[in-house]
Structure formats: C-alpha cells, structure tokens
C-alpha cells in the first residue's frame, strides 16, 4: 500500500502530457486525468494541483471530479486493477466463488493494493458482459465465463477474452458482427458499409426526418423518445452546424445490459456511419461518443475506427465528397459512474464536471452539450435508424407490431442455458425468448424474471406470456428499458438479489438530490438487514414503500425515480420477502 505513497512524485513524467493540454478548456479534464493516471496509477495531490493549474480549473473542482468517478483514484493504487463483477447476473452464475478464489490467490480484500504496489483488487458493479457471467477485468483485459479454477489464468492475463454471443432472426442490426474484421474499414465497405448513408443522402434532411418518423423508432436507451422528433427538434433549434452536436450514448451501465458493447466492439464503423447520418439530418458538425470506462476494448476499437474513417474521407470536411458536409467525432472515455448514462449528466462529464444531472427543461435539443443544441441517442437507436436507411422503411415495418416497429435487442442472462444478445422482432413473448435461450437448467423452474434491468421490474412465472412490446410492457406493468431479460430459477436467493439491487443504487446515486441520496442508502440498509443481518422486522415493508414512493415521486432524475422500481415490484409480488 505504502510502496507508491512514500515515493516523491516525479512531476517531470507528466510534463510531456501537460504541454498538450495548456490552453485547453475544462472539457479536457477527464481525458487529462485518464492520461495522468496511466502514468502514476493514481492521482496524487501534486498531480491534481498540476492539472488544476494547466486547465485553470479550481482545486476543489478537480478534486470533486476525481472523487466522483470510481475509476479515478485519490489514494495510492496500482497501475493494474483487477476487477470482478459482483452484480446480479454474475452472482447468479457463481461470482462469489470466483471472487473468493481471486482473494485467496492475491491475498487481498476488495479495495486493497498488494504490498509491492503492483496490483489493486476490487469488486465492481455490472461490467456489461452478463452473457459470459461471471466476469472480470484484469487491467484492460476482459475476461468472461470465469470459474475458480480459471483464476490463475485470469490473473496471468491468458484467460481467453470473451466475444459477444449473438442469436436471433432477422439480424437486421447485428448481422455483421463476427463476420467481418471490426478493425478493417475496407471490410466494412465490403459488408454494405455506407450503403445506408449514401442512399439517404439522395434525400433532403426533412425527407429523412419523415422516413424516421414513419419508421416509429423509439429511443432504445430507456426513455422511448421518437428519434425522428428528436432530430427534427435539434435541426430546428437556433444555432449553426458548428454549434450543434450529435452524441452517441455508449455508457451502457444498466445492470444486465450488454447490447451496445456488441456493436462497439464488433461493428464500430456502423456507429460512425449512423452518427454521420444524424449529423447530415440535424446539421451538426460535432460528434461525441461517450463510452463507459469499463469498456477498454470498445474504446480502443472506436478510436481506431474514427481515425480510419478520417483517413478515408468518411469523417472530416466535405465528407463522402459532398461539399459542405463537415462532421467529426471525438471518443470520450468515462470513469466508472452509472449516472453518466443519464443524458445531462453525460454532458456534464464531457464538460469536465461531476456527473450531476441537470433539471429539464430546458431539454438537450436546445440546451445540451455546452448548452448548445444536441441530439443524444443510444447506440442501438442510432444503428436502428441506419438500418432503416439501408433496408428502407417498408422492409423495417414488416417486423414488429404497429406501435413497436422493427427489431429490438434483448439481453438474456441469468439462469438460462444459452445467455446472449438476441435480436428479435418486437412481439415475441418472454416465454418464447426464454425457450430460444434453451430454458432454465433441466429440473429447475423459473422463480422470477427481471425485465428492463435494475431500474426495471420483476415478473412472476404466471406473466411469462406477456409480449415484449411497448404496449405489452405498459399493460403488464414492466418497462422494456434497455431490453434486459434476466432469468432467476428457484435457487436464487431473492432477498440477496434485492439487497444487491439496492446496493447498486446506493453506490451509484450521484448525491445531488436529497430523496435519492438518502433514500437509496436507507433502502439498502433495510434490505441488507433483511437479507443477511437479522431478517425482516415489523415495519420494514411500510418503510421500504414509503422511501420507495418518495424517491420515485420527488427525485431529480431517472436514477432516483427508478431506484425502488424493481424492489417495489418484488414486494408487491412476494410480500413475504420483506416481512
């Protein structure tokens, strides 16, 4: 632990980095902190002071940012951090045994650094690879399907890296993954790359907006806003193209969600093409991809893809040979904060601030990134729009239902024989999806299914015939959310699962508003006691409901508004869990 801290900090190592940042604005804060941390493994006081001077950001603000993001370290930490997922999908598939094996092998408890200062160990929330549960990260190397016996390989960095598991039909949006080299621009062109964008560039932006409106694509990030309308509003907002932004939300941190990672790692050029289309439609010259800090491989591939597209004239000025079509993309890496998936918190993060959500209105379409007009979309939403451009709206509307058009990605995980990412037309029932996934293990039966992620809701076995559509979800009282379908058989300890959910929210609450800051904590304390510290007491149910309703009704942003959603749904279905 002390190995690094007693050393004097050699600031000359930082000089070559700092010179590239002098004169830049505060929005360079996160990238600079990432670079500085890559040198020292953590962010010593002297480094934070140097960062503050370089970007002219107040000391208290630099420190506040460092302390906000879980992957920035204010205390001596090794350059290599071993992280093992402790979230629900991994817990259901044996994460505890893996964690114990790692702890024994390293001789460390969560949060500790080895005596030689070479490795730090942590247990972390969902890593977005639930189809491979249980999962870990060794430095920047991903690992899936871990077992206790695989731990030495994992720690030695030779355990195989997991690839996305893709199933379903028709694979309108995921078809290229695994069939092409994700790094090769030529290969992308050979696999129908830029067919969609070239096709719609025959039309005016207004005509494309109409196409998108008739495609009925709703936002896949959870809020279900129609993409056509969002692009129309941003296009219509006052401002020049140089003052408008297209943002791809690749923060994907909702527990149980691992869909966008497949595109980011397996088909990164399609996101670039989709964003270019958005830029053409909206009239925006600035593009941003915000990818979560726990996706190092996705980040690397995106950076590579952006660079290649620039070299080939598919990003930059007068793109694709079209005079006046200027668009460029900057890839930004998060640093461990679920809240930064919330669109306004994401803007704050890009601007170099703590990820505190803003109050809406005003909305991003007029006051988004840097208070300028911004169209922010989830990765899947953008790829869906590009798919419509490529195959045509009539073909798209052949799939799904009237209200829920086209296909959706479902993240099937938990106690299921064939977990994976399933692209299916809207309308498939939960039972059918589970059957496609091979069902639960032989001899087991379904106890519960978590739909929509930690911010979603549980359903019982009697609701399995509900269709996975927006209208079906509304009728049955669960959100489609990010498409999470997590299966729990009778071996799952529901009290422990509820505690894990509450722990996630208490850990991720940004702290800005009172009901969520305190409510998530109280909720967790009660569920912790119920789960493994004395059991339920009279009054627990009432207290949980009271806290839950207050958070739902009065919290500032979607995190607090949904922090009790899955828990309250479980209490309604199985009141005996809490009393």
């Amino acid at each position, binding site marked *: 632990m002390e190995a690094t801290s007693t050393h004097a900090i050699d600031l000359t190592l930082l000089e070559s980095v700092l010179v590239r940042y002098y004169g830049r604005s505060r929005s360079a804060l996160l990238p600079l902190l990432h670079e500085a941390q890559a040198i020292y493994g953590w962010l010593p006081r002297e480094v934070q002071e140097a960062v503050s001077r370089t970007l002219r950001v*107040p000391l208290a603000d630099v420190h*506040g940012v460092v302390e906000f993001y879980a992957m920035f370290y204010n205390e001596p930490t090794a350059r290599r951090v071993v992280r093992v997922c402790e979230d629900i999908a991994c817990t259901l598939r044996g994460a505890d045994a893996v964690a114990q094996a790692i702890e024994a092998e390293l001789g460390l408890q969560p949060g500790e650094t080895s005596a030689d200062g070479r490795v730090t160990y942590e247990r972390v929330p969902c890593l977005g690879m639930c189809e491979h549960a249980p999962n870990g990260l060794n430095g920047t190397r991903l690992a899936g399907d871990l077992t206790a016996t695989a731990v030495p390989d994992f720690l030695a960095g030779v355990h195989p890296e997991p690839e996305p598991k893709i199933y379903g039909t028709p694979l309108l949006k995921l078809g290229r993954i695994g069939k092409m080299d994700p790094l090769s621009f030529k290969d992308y062109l050979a696999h129908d790359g830029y067919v969609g964008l070239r096709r719609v560039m025959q039309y005016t932006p207004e005509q494309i907006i109409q196409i998108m409106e008739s495609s009925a694509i709703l936002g896949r990030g959870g809020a279900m806003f129609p993409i056509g309308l969002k692009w129309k509003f941003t296009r219509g907002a006052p401002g020049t193209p140089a003052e408008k932004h297209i943002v791809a939300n690749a923060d994907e941190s909702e527990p149980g969600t691992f869909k966008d990672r497949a595109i980011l790692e397996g088909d990164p050029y399609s996101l670039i093409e989709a964003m270019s289309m958005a830029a053409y439609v909206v009239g925006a010259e600035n593009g941003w991809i915000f990818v979560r800090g726990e996706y190092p491989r996705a980040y690397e591939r995106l950076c590579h893809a952006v660079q290649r597209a620039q070299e080939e004239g598919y990003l930059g000025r007068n793109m694709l040979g079209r005079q006046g079509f200027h668009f460029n993309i900057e890839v930004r890496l998060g640093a461990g904060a679920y809240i930064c998936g919330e669109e306004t918190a994401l803007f704050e993060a890009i601007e170099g601030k703590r990820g505190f959500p803003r109050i809406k209105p005003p909305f991003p379409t007029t006051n988004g990134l840097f208070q300028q007009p911004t169209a922010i979309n989830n990765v899947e939403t953008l790829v869906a729009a590009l798919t419509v451009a490529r195959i045509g709206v009539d073909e798209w509307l052949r799939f799904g239902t009237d209200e829920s058009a086209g296909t959706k990605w479902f993240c099937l995980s938990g106690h299921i024989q064939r977990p994976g990412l399933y692209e299916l037309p809207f309308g498939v029932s939960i039972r059918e999806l589970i059957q496609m996934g091979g069902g639960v293990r032989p001899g087991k039966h379904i106890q519960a299914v978590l739909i929509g992620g930690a911010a979603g809701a549980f359903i019982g076995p009697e609701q399995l015939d509900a269709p996975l559509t927006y209208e079906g979800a509304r009728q049955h009282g669960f959100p489609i959310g990010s498409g999470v379908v997590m299966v729990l058989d009778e071996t799952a300890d529901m009290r422990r699962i509820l505690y894990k959910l509450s722990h996630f929210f208490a850990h991720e609450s940004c*702290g800005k508003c*009172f009901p969520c800051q*305190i409510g*998530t904590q109280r909720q967790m304390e009660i569920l912790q006691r119920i789960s493994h510290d004395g059991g339920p007491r009279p009054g627990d149910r009432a*207290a949980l409901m009271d*806290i839950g309703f*207050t958070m739902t009704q009065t919290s500032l942003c979607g995190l607090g508004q949904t922090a009790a959603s899955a828990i309250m749904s479980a209490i309604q279905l199985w009141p005996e869990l809490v009393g």
Partner: protein
Amino acid sequence: MKRQTQARIITLKIDGVDVAAREHETILELAQENNIFIPTLCHLDGLSEYGGCRICVVEVKGSNRLFPACMTPATEGMEVITNSERLRLYRFSILDMLFSERNHVCSVCVSNGHCDLQYLSAKLGMTRVEVPYLNPKVDVDASHEHFIMDHNRCILCQRCVRVCGEIEGAFTKGVMGRGVNTRIIHDLNGAWGDSDTCTSCGKCVNVCPTGALVEKGKSAGEMVKRRDWLPYLRLMQED
C-alpha cells in the same frame, strides 16, 4: 432563472387563484410575489438554482409528476397546486430522511432558533422521525481562524459552494464523493484553515441554512445569519 425586462405577460393559476407572470419567471418567484408560501432549502435569492432539495415540489394539473417550483418556469394556462395532502406527505418524507442522515440535535446547535431546516420542520408540522436514525459520525473542521464547518449538520444544499464561487469568486469550496458519502470540501479536501484560496469573507457562513457553518465563539442559539446583501450583490454583478 434570469428575469427579462420586457418579457411577455402570461396568466396561470396557483392554488386556484389567477395570477399574472412574466414569461421565464419560475413558479417559486411567482408564488413569492403573490405571498404564497412554498418551502425551500437549497434555493436562495441571488444564487444560481440547484434543484437538489426537492422540498419545493408542486403539482401541475394534467401531469402525474411533481415539479420543483424553484426551477420550473411558469407557462400560460398552467394550474399549479402548492399544498395538497400528497405534497405534504412527500415534503415530510424528505425532511424525515434528512433527519435520519447526519445529526440534527437542535438543542445543542449554535443555530438553534435561526435554522432554516428547523424552521421548515416546525412550519410543516413535523414532530417525529419515521425513517430509522443512523447518523453516521462525520468530521468537524475547526481549523479556520474564524469559522467552523460541522459536517454532521450539513444537508449538502451547496449554497456555500455556490456563494463561494459565484459571488466571492474564490472557488474554495467544492463537493466530493457521491451518494451519502458526498462531502463539502475546501480545495483538495485539505483543512479549511490551510486554504490559500479562501478569503475569509464569511459569505458561506451567512448563507448556510443550518448550523453546519458557523462563526467561532458562539454558544447554542446565538448564531444569526445575515444574507440581505446577496440579491444586491448579484444585481451589481449583472450590471
């Protein structure tokens, strides 16, 4: 919200009463002009809005959601309800949570009798705490020559952070951590007394709604806060 001098006039209803407002005015500003009481904690005239305490939530007819009055612009035809049984319950519940976190034993506090939190609780008729107490022990920083920061009484309204940056321009105060581990800090979380950026202006102490920031040498109940200068200073800055 910034006021505009030649804004359009709109009409709406607050608690059934017809009122006229300038466009861009917030529901809170409008209520105050019409002598309608809406409780607030993080709002303070003269500072930017924060929107964190949620005590000021109101109902708007036609929506199931609740809206923070301090940051919701009044719009034409809106029907606002500022006190209903539902609102009373939620405001109670938020205060309840505040008391369950940190330590607010008023009888020993120097701000006893001059505390916005205490005032609000009494005004809303709060007599008991429903959420189980936890009161984690946090620090007291008495390193500053004139002032004390008692984190146990801090509700994280960030008035101090805002006044320090927006009005004094010192940017000494900030906030670190997240969730219940959020803390007010000075510079890089050093002792307040060691801060090179603090001008010892005392503005943060005067805007603090609780006994978290106080002057040294006051005994229980003596700390009266002055903040009549704030809107005035803000006006001077805008000119």
